[in-house]
C-alpha cells in the first residue's frame, strides 16, 4: 500500500490508453456478468433446499398424461410424506395463443408447500373464498399492467370452458410475492387458480390431476419415499414416476438446450480476446517506461518490488474495469426486464458470480502482467538507461 501512489501514477501516465483499456475490460466483464447470471440461474433452478424436500409425481408415460385424483389420499398415507398437494396445467394465454403464461390449477393447500411464494393473509382468505379467483406473480402483474380486483379474460390453449369456448374469465384476488429472489424468475411469472373450479368447468378433466407434489419429512429418505409412491400404482394403467423437484427441474433444463456449452464457448472467446488486448497494452506500457524502471532500480528498489509494482498495476486495472463491468451488468438486469415488460428476465448477479468474477479479474491481471513484470525485473540498469 505504501507504493499505491506510484502504481496510480503509472496508470495515469497515459490517460487515453488506460481509459481505452478500461473500456475493453468493462465490456468483457459486463458480458461476463450477464452470461454468468443466466448460467447460474439455470444451474440453480430447483436447487433450493425446498426443492430437495419436495417430490414430484407425474405420469410415467408422458408429462401431458393425467393421474386420478384418488391417488391423493393414498400418497398422503405413504410413510414419510408430510403433506401432499396437486396441480394441473391450464395452458393459459393472454390475448394471443402465443402469449403463454405459466398457469396452474392447484389444490387448496398448494401454497403451504411453497414457502418461496408469499401471499398476504387477507389475500389468501380472499382466494379461498372466490371460486374464480387467481393469484398472480408480481412480475406477471407488471408485464400486463394488471391490478388486484381486476377481472381478466384468459384463453386456455388446452381446455375449453363449460360453454365449449376457450375463453375463461378470472378475478385477480392477490399477488404472489417471491420471498427467494434467486429462484424468483420462475415464481414471479406464475398464475394460480382453483383446481376445483377448473375441474368443474372444463368437460375434459373430470377428476384427474397433472402431477402431485409431496413434502417429505426427512430429505435423506426422499429416495425411499419416491419408490413407495411409485409402488402404489405399479402395473396399473396410470403408472407414476416420482423424483425430487431438483432432479425433475435439472433434467427438464438439460433438454431445453445445452446452455452451458454455448455460454461457455462465448465466454472463452471473450476472455481470450480480453487477455490478448490487455496483455498487449501492459507490454506496451512497460516497454515505454524502460528508463523509468531503470531509475527506480538505480535508487535501490529491489527486483522483487519492481516485479510487484508492474503486477499490481495490471491487477488494479483489471479490478477497476471488472468491478465496474459486473456492477453495470447488475444494474442493467432490472432495466432490461422493465423495457421488455418482464418478458426477458435477467437474474440478479449472485455471490457466486461475483466471487468467480473477482477470481477471474485477479487471475487475468496476474497472467497479463506477468511477462512484462518479469521483463521489468530482469532489466539491466546500464542497458536500460542507455536506451539499448
Amino acid at each position, binding site marked *: 500500500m505504501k507504493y499505491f501512489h506510484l502504481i496510480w501514477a503509472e496508470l495515469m501516465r497515459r490517460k487515453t490508453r488506460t481509459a481505452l483499456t478500461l473500456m475493453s475490460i468493462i465490456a468483457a466483464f459486463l458480458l461476463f456478468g450477464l452470461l454468468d447470471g443466466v448460467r447460474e440461474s439455470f444451474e440453480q433452478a430447483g436447487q433450493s433446499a425446498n426443492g430437495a424436500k419436495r417430490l414430484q409425481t407425474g405420469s410415467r408415460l*408422458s408429462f401431458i398424461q393425467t393421474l386420478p385424483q384418488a391417488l391423493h389420499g393414498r400418497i398422503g398415507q405413504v410413510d414419510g410424506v408430510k403433506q401432499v398437494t396437486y396441480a394441473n396445467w391450464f395452458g393459459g394465454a393472454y390475448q394471443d395463443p402465443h402469449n403463454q403464461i405459466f398457469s396452474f390449477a392447484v389444490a387448496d393447500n398448494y401454497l403451504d408447500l411453497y414457502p418461496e411464494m408469499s401471499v398476504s393473509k387477507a389475500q389468501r382468505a380472499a382466494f379461498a373464498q372466490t371460486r374464480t379467483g387467481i393469484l398472480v406473480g408480481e412480475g406477471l402483474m407488471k408485464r400486463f399492467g394488471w391490478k388486484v380486483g381486476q377481472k381478466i379474460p384468459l384463453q386456455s390453449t388446452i381446455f375449453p370452458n363449460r360453454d365449449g369456448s376457450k375463453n375463461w374469465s378470472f378475478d385477480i384476488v392477490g399477488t404472489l410475492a417471491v420471498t427467494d429472489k434467486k429462484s424468483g424468475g420462475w415464481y414471479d411469472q406464475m398464475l394460480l387458480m382453483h383446481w376445483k373450479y377448473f375441474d368443474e368447468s372444463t368437460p375434459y378433466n373430470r377428476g384427474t390431476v397433472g402431477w402431485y407434489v409431496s413434502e417429505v419429512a426427512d430429505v435423506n429418505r426422499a429416495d425411499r419415499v419416491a419408490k413407495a409412491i411409485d409402488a402404489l400404482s405399479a402395473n396399473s394403467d396410470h403408472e407414476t414416476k416420482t423424483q425430487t423437484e431438483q432432479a425433475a427441474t435439472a*433434467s427438464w433444463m438439460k433438454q431445453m438446450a445445452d446452455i452451458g456449452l454455448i455460454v461457455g464457448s462465448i465466454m472463452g472467446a471473450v476472455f481470450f480476446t480480453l487477455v490478448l488486448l490487455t496483455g498487449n497494452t501492459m507490454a506496451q506500457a512497460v516497454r515505454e517506461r524502460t528508463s523509468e524502471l531503470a531509475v527506480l532500480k538505480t535508487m535501490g528498489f529491489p527486483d522483487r518490488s519492481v516485479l510487484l509494482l508492474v503486477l499490481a498495476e495490471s491487477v488494479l486495472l483489471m479490478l477497476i474495469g471488472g468491478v465496474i463491468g459486473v456492477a453495470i451488468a447488475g444494474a442493467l438486469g432490472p432495466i432490461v426486464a422493465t423495457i421488455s415488460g418482464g418478458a426477458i428476465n435477467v437474474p440478479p448477479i449472485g455471490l457466486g458470480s461475483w466471487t468467480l468474477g473477482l477470481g477471474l479479474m485477479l487471475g487475468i491481471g496476474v497472467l497479463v502482467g506477468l511477462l512484462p513484470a518479469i521483463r521489468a525485473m530482469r532489466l539491466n540498469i546500464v542497458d536500460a538507461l542507455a536506451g539499448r
Partner: protein
Amino acid sequence: MKKLKSLLRGALTGLILAIALVAWSLLPWPALLGLAVAFALWMLLTRSGRQAASVAGVGISTLSQRLGSSSVVVIGIAGVVAVLVAMLSMAEGYQETLRRTGSDDSVMVLRGASAAEVMSTLDLASINVIEQAPGIARGADGRPLASPETVVAANLPIKGGAPDEDGSVQLRGVGDRAWQVRPQVKIVQGRRFETGKREVVVGSGAQRQFAGLEVGKQIRLGNERWTVVGVFKSGDAMDSEVWADAQMVAATYGRGASRNSVVAKLSDAKQFKAFKAALAGDPRLQVDTTTTAEYFAKQSEAMTKVIRIIGIVVGSIMAIGAVFGALNTMFATVATRAREIATLRAIGFRGVPVVVAVMLETMLLALLGGLIGGALAWLVFNGYTASTIAGGVGQLTFDFRVTGALLWSGLKWALAIGFVGGLFPALRAATLPVTTALRAL
C-alpha cells in the same frame, strides 16, 4: 474559442460517424460495391488519392514490425465476428428447420385456440367433416389426402443420460395417408410399420437424441413394448419424431377415436382461402386452420427472436470491447509513426491522404479479422447439431447454418468496428501540429 472549435469538431465527427454506420448497416451490397469501386478510382486517378495509396503502402509494408499490436485488432474482431455468426447461425438453423417443415399447399386443422398440435383434440365427427371439405387433393384411390394424426409427448431414455433420466419425444400416430401428405419423409433403413402392430419408425434426429432407437430393438412407450422397424429421414422437424400406427398410439394413451390434428394436402395453394372459409362457416366445427408453413413459422418465431436478440446483444457488447481495443492499437500505431507521418506532412502531404491511409490500414486488419472469425464460425459451427424443447412437447434437433448472408453481415460488423477504431487515431494523426509531432519520441 479554441475549446469551442474542438468541441464542434468532435460533435461533427460523431455525427458523421453515426450517419456512416447507419448507412453502412442499411446499404445493400451493390451500393457498397459501387462505393468501393468509386474509392478505388479515386485512389488511382486523383493526386490526393495516389498520395493516400503511397502512404498506406508504407504503413502496410511496415505492418510486420508491429505484428503483436496489429494482431490484437485482428483477433479481437475475429472473436466478435465468430461469436455473432455462431449465435445467428443457431437461430438461422432453427428457423430453417421449421420453415422447411411446412408448405403453402398443405394445411393443419386444430381445435380452436390451440397454441400447438399437442394441445388440440378433434373428435371423430369433426374429422369426418374436415376430410370432406373442398380443396383437398385426392389420391390415386380417389380418397382425400387428409391425415388425422395423434400427437403425444412420450418419455424415452436420453442418450448418455443417467439410467433413470427420461427426455420427451414427440410420438405421432399416423395412418397410411400421412406418407402421401408428407412426401419428403423417406424410409432410409428398415421398413414402414404395419397397421395394427406395435411397431414404430424413428426419425434420424430422434435416433441421435434418444437411446435404444435402433432397428430391431424394443422400446417402451406408454405401458407397452414396441419394436423399432425403420428409420426415416425428412430433412425437417419430422426428423425429431417417432411415428407409429394411429390406432395403436390412441389405444396406448387412452385417446379413443379422437385425434389431435388433421394434416391435409390441398390440390392447389390457392384453395386455402376457400378451404378455411368452408371450415369456419361450418356450424359443426370449432377449429383453427393454418397452412403448415404458417404454423411452423409461428412455432419458431419466439425462439428465433430470443436467440437473435441474445446474439446481437452479446455481439454488440463484444464489439464495443473490440472497438476500444482497435482504438488503443491504432493510437499506439499512430504514436510510434508520429514522426514519419509528420515528416510526410512537412514535405507537402495533405491531411486527407494521411487520414485515408491510417483508415485503410485499420480496415484491412478488420477485414482480415472478419474473414478469420467467419471462417472459424463456419468451420466449428456449420452443421453443428443442437436440440431444444419445441412446441412445448418434444425435443427438436436442428443444425446450425452458417449462410453466406450471415458471413456477409459478420464482415460488415468487422469493417464497421475497424472504421470506428481507425477514425479517431487517423484524425489525430492528421491534425496533430507538425512541429509537435516532429519533436515526439
